[in-house]
């Protein structure tokens, strides 16, 4: 047989081999991460409990409830809105595995955009997983993409007009933090946003905290972004954080930037809404080789050089900004916001015990506050 006649068969066979081996890697992302909530857990629910049409879809995700014996307010902590911002997810997991509530209620969603955790962003070359050492072994976590998996929501419109009326590039139709307040009959991402809004209303949430990360070259970083409903709360929390040695900027939520949690949670549900940002080198545009080590250790020679050139909005030295430090910042931020809530609205206070203290996370390492794997 001539090469001309055999080459289609050879190419087809080669394609099948490529599909098999790469497909295996892609499908591995669908295996959900493990979480071992601590004894403070009072109920394990699903987001679909608040919006039943979400049940059985890739957007459904666990909601962990920590109800205290005494009456108080309700606080929502959301991680994993952007699955490529691991400090938000891990901070939520650490809280779920450690806290007990003495007064009021805490609701935790560690993987808000569950679909986004099942794939990685093309052309970002991110690792699919990273590991954290615990005293009992290594825990593995998925590093997903910023947006919903196109396998679950496709095609993107040319221009996305979000529920708030903001015109955005088509890909943003899969960005959970542009989809609030969501739509009950909208896209998967909009339905997830709608379900979170339904939870906020059903649970009488008074304070919503959305945990994020941003690239070191991005101006809104190491910041508390606040809705005007939560201006006093954010300012009070910032003062106590600064007293602890944490430099947090205050950024008011722009009223014309629609679809974001810190805008729509406040506007649509009237709650105090804040978003916390830490600095993550692994999803910036200046990063060197992406790797699990970059995610966890946060060291990058290009960012170090960019800092010397004055191109960054955070200090970035040879030690980088490790995940321990980023999660510690988030935990300190959550603690400060809870304290500020108690000060500003005592009747709505939520008293939480056993939040790992930021200095302890820094000295003992993050793994000391995660339960060991089986």
């Amino acid at each position: 047989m001539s090469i001309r006649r055999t080459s289609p068969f050879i190419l087809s066979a080669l394609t099948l081999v490529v599909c098999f081996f790469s497909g295996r890697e892609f499908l591995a992302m669908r295996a959900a991460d493990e979480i071992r909530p601590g004894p403070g857990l009072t109920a394990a629910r699903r987001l679909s409990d608040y919006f039943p049409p979400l049940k059985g879809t890739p957007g459904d995700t666990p909601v962990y409830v920590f109800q205290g014996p005494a009456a108080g307010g309700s606080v929502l902590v959301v991680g994993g809105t952007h699955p490529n911002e691991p400090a938000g997810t891990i901070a939520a997991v650490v809280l779920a595995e450690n806290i007990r509530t003495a007064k009021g209620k805490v609701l935790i969603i560690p993987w808000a955009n569950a679909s986004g955790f099942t794939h990685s962003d093309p052309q970002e070359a991110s690792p699919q997983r990273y590991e954290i050492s615990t005293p009992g072994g290594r825990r593995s976590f998925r590093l997903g993409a910023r947006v919903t998996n196109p396998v679950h929501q496709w095609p993107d419109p040319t221009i996305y007009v979000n529920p708030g009326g903001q015109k955005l590039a088509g890909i943003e139709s899969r960005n959970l933090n542009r989809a609030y307040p969501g739509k009950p009959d909208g896209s998967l991402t909009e339905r997830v946003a709608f379900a979170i809004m339904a939870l906020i209303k059903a649970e009488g949430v008074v304070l919503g905290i959305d945990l994020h990360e941003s690239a070191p070259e991005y101006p809104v970083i190491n910041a508390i972004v606040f809705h005007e409903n939560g201006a006093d709360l954010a300012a009070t929390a910032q003062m106590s954080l600064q007293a602890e040695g944490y430099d947090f900027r205050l950024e008011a939520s722009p009223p014309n930037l629609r679809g974001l949690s810190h805008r729509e949670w406040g506007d649509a549900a009237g709650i105090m809404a804040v978003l916390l940002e830490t600095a993550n080198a692994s999803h910036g545009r200046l990063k060197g080789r992406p790797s699990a080590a970059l995610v966890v250790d946060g060291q990058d020679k290009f960012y170090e050089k960019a800092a010397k050139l004055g191109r960054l909005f955070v200090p970035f030295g040879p030690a980088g900004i490790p995940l321990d430090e980023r999660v510690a910042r988030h935990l300190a931020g959550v603690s400060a916001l809870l304290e500020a809530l108690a000060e500003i609205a005592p009747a709505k206070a939520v008293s939480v015990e056993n939040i790992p203290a930021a200095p302890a996370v820094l000295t003992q390492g993050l793994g000391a506050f995660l339960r060991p794997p089986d």
Partner: protein
Amino acid sequence: MSEPLVLLVMVGAFAGLTLRFKLPLGVALALAAAAGALAGGQGLALRHLVEGAFGFFDIILILASAMIFMKVLEESGTLDALAAAILRTFRRSRTGLLLTLMLLMMFPGMITGSSLAAALSTGPIVAPVLLKLGLPRARTAAFVALGAVLGMIAPPVNILVMIMGAGVDMPYVGLTLPLLIISVPVAVFTALWIGRGRMRIPPLDELKTLLPGASPSFKLYLPLLLVPALMILENIHPRGLPGLGLPVIFLAGSLVGAVCGRRFNILKATQRAVEQAMPILSILAGVGMFIQVMTLTGARGWTVLAFLSLPPALLFAGLAVGLPLFGGISAFGSASVLGVPFLLALVNRNALITAAALSALAGLGDLVPPAAMAARFSAQVSGEESLAPVLRACAGPALALLAWSLVVLLASPILERIL
């Protein structure tokens, strides 16, 4: 191997495979990406090659469906009929004809933010008109390509700005005027410059011999009305219309076109269209792999930092070269990878004017090899087989757009006060 060396290996492999071994561009890009992964110590990086190739999956579908649409218009006789109608209407005013054709060329880009949508939807309408008036194929292709790029930059929809805006949380508001300032003067210049002295509108008697005899029926124009109508409806009334996406819109236009004009075999036409599109589709897949491996090996980060390391005096030169050059791989990629850091580096200037100017520079990338998507497709719709003469014909207006964008950027403090 260090990041710049990896980049050198990738570029060297690409150049060697295309120039020495004459491999198709798409294949050469894929092999250069694989070479980069090996040189960067990442092994064959199969997952990354596949993932990168899917980075432009949506654009690949748009191109394939638009090529089918274009072939249907050609086979059904719609293109000939429309060219005739335009020539009859504007035969008394060459300037009016050129400016109308430029606006027609820009229109799909203005509503979709994509130069490809423009080159592929109104390109096949405008090109035959210009060719019938005696404009050489290369210049016709340049007219189509530049119109498509200017349409992508012009308001109301500029996806390049939206991409940069998403990177800095800048709402897409207040951009109409800055984008008009950048696009309109260059569009007028381009239309008149390309058509100047080289076109001849024949007298009516002679024109009749060039045009189809019988008056076409209205239904021949239905696919041409349907496609822009769906594009507009999707954008102005997104909540009333489900997100169809450009591939479905083009395929709907193709189906309507297949029953509205001359009879032809739609399956064979589709086959020919996909066959013609295949080299360009493979370039896009290859470009996706190339960018993914650049990121994987750190070469992307090194490239971005190299531009940002330029002293302030050279920063403008860096962005004038870097944005179009990276845009030669992908204009949208350039806006995301380089546009956002440049926008942040110029944070002390008016963000709206800066983003508008940077979007024009990134958009120019659609005329820059290796991908040169707008230029390639314009060459195809104009029947020009070689890319080089098209790029030469584009050079003047493209340089004018580059210079004008820089002027706007430098004058942004003054413009800010005026606007």
